């Protein structure tokens, strides 16, 4: 039996309950479908990861869903500008739980080369991030590595594998 983050028990008891939880975790980590959130240059490397040489589909990410309601992973691939930040937060809010975020690349992790007025300095200022991938852009191998790391954590416990899980609305976006 597990206690979920909001304090309630999930009602699964005993050995069948344990098996069911593990089955759930295995199902979740084996079919993480990302939402299409390619913003800039990292999006091209994300497409390379989806193409046949690196092939993300063999890790379970068969399809990129355009609708956030049907996705459980948001790979923020690229720089997030001031205008795009509310859109990012809205897409993140529209994704149903459990959901994960990979901050792909230097711009998503910490704004990379662009330490200026126009960009959000790291996407973790507005959404909680599970895995940061360094690189400008990260090679497809690095993105696959981040996906594998995410899957390892999800496989342990898919419901509370959220790093810094937030249930309240995100922090306000500072404007100049």
């Amino acid at each position, binding site marked *: 039996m597990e206690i979920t983050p909001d304090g309630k028990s999930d009602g699964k008891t005993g050995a069948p309950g344990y098996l069911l939880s593990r089955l759930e975790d295995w199902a979740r980590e084996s079919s993480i479908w990302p939402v299409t959130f390619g913003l800039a240059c990292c999006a091209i490397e994300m497409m390379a990861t989806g193409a046949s040489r690196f092939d993300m589909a063999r890790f379970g990410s068969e399809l990129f869903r355009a609708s956030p309601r049907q996705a459980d992973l948001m790979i923020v691939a690229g720089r997030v500008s001031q*205008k795009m930040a509310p859109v990012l937060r809205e897409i993140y809010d529209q994704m149903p739980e459990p959901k994960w975020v990979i901050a792909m690349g230097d711009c998503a992790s910490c704004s990379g080369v662009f*330490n200026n*007025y*126009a960009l959000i*300095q790291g996407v973790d200022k507005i959404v909680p991030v599970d895995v940061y991938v360094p690189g400008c852009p990260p090679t497809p191998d690095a993105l696959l590595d981040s996906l594998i790391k995410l899957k390892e954590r999800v496989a342990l416990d898919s419901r509370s594998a959220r790093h810094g899980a937030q249930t309240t609305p995100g922090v306000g976006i500072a*404007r*100049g």
Partner: protein
Amino acid sequence: MPITESGLQSTFEAGEVTIPADGIPTVRVPLDDLTRAVDKIRFELDHSRFVDVTAVDRLTPEDRFELVYLFYSLREKTWLRLKTRTDSEAPSITSSVPGANWYEREVFDLFGITFKGHPDLTRIMLPEDWQGHPLRRTVPIGAEPVDFTVTRSAYGSS
């Protein structure tokens, strides 16, 4: 007929003609002559293809911004640059050059120069409610101090 420096000077009596490092003939006219100069360049001098509009902040006490227009001639295969100086306003050339629409919006957004007669002068790059014009050289870049361990004593850790 190819453009020569003297030929250009005679077409624009009130203007200053120079040829900078890239070899593109450059005419500087007073702000009042801007619309007429654009028409002259596009029709008399046959540089009708529109290429670019931008601004440079020269930080002079008067006429601080330099507006730079770039045109191209399909027949002569040359560029021609038109410059003018302004403090805050300029006439829009969108009615004769539809392609200048977004370029003027961008200059308005980032420099704060208003273009009189523009059909839709709103911000294009920054959010609608942004305050300020970032590309002016008096506006700081807006960088965030980076949390390096060696500078923690100065900035503290963020």
